[in-house]
């Protein structure tokens, strides 16, 4: 255990930390939701991650995503991996720089206990959820987090035993309603909390 991991024993019992450190969590999409959710999970001790995104870091991402100016142009998988390893050098990260489609979702997340759906587009959110739901994996999806204000409306809804949906279900991102750091971070943090709650009750 490195210094960071040893310090986690101040907050978790050895049994709970072991549960957290052995769980493998997948994150589908490393934008505002995925990058910030990964940050929270890693700070709670999650070590085994499968990170998936095909995109590169752009300046317009920096208003809410967990990247930095010196990472512009890098692929998000490498950029996020680099930052997360600064928090805990002992992480075991599998990165996939690819576009998730119907035919690769199952294989990419095959050995994950839980998957965070962190895409931007509604069509892809639906695709991930309907493809993974029958596997019984714990899925935490998000819908409705754009704009500002009324952040208490970003709720956690347990839709099924293995499906949790975070968001206000209606605030769709658009040019009039941009995705902004506070509400995006609230949703991402709630996603991470739902994953942590699931792991700790196992």
């Amino acid at each position, binding site marked *: 255990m490195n210094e960071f991991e040893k310090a986690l024993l101040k907050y978790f019992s050895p049994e709970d930390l072991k549960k957290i450190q052995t769980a493998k969590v997948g994150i589908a999409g490393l934008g505002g939701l995925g990058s910030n959710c990964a940050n929270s999970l890693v700070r709670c001790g999650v070590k085994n991650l499968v990170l998936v995104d095909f995109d590169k870091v752009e300046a317009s991402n920096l208003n809410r995503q967990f990247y930095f100016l010196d990472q512009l142009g890098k692929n998000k998988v490498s950029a996020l991996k680099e930052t997360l390893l600064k928090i805990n050098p002992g992480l075991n990260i599998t990165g996939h720089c690819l576009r998730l489609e119907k035919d690769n979702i199952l294989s990419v997340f095959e050995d994950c206990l839980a998957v965070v759906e962190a*895409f931007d587009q*509604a*069509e892809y*959110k*639906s695709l991930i959820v309907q493809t993974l739901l029958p596997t019984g994996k714990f899925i935490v999806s998000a*819908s*409705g*987090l754009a704009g500002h204000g009324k952040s208490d409306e970003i709720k956690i809804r347990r839709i099924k035993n293995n499906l949790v949906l975070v968001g206000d279900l209606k605030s769709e991102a658009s040019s009039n309603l941009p995705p902004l750091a506070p509400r995006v971070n609230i949703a991402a943090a709630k996603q991470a909390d739902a994953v942590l709650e699931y792991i700790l009750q196992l």
Partner: protein
Amino acid sequence: MQVTVNGKPQTLSGGLSLLKLLSEKGLDKKRVVVELNLEIVPQEKMENTLIKEGDSIEIVSFVTGG
């Protein structure tokens, strides 16, 4: 006919397909996950899946943003 949609009882006209139900609710089949009696119905089957008396339908719909 009487069905349950997202846990609430609802009366629908007979012979309605899932796709028709979605469009009546203003929903796009590509942006939802639909379960009919706990089974996920793939997008391509929504048009030919007819709703029957007593069915339980769960619709989860998504909006863009992340």
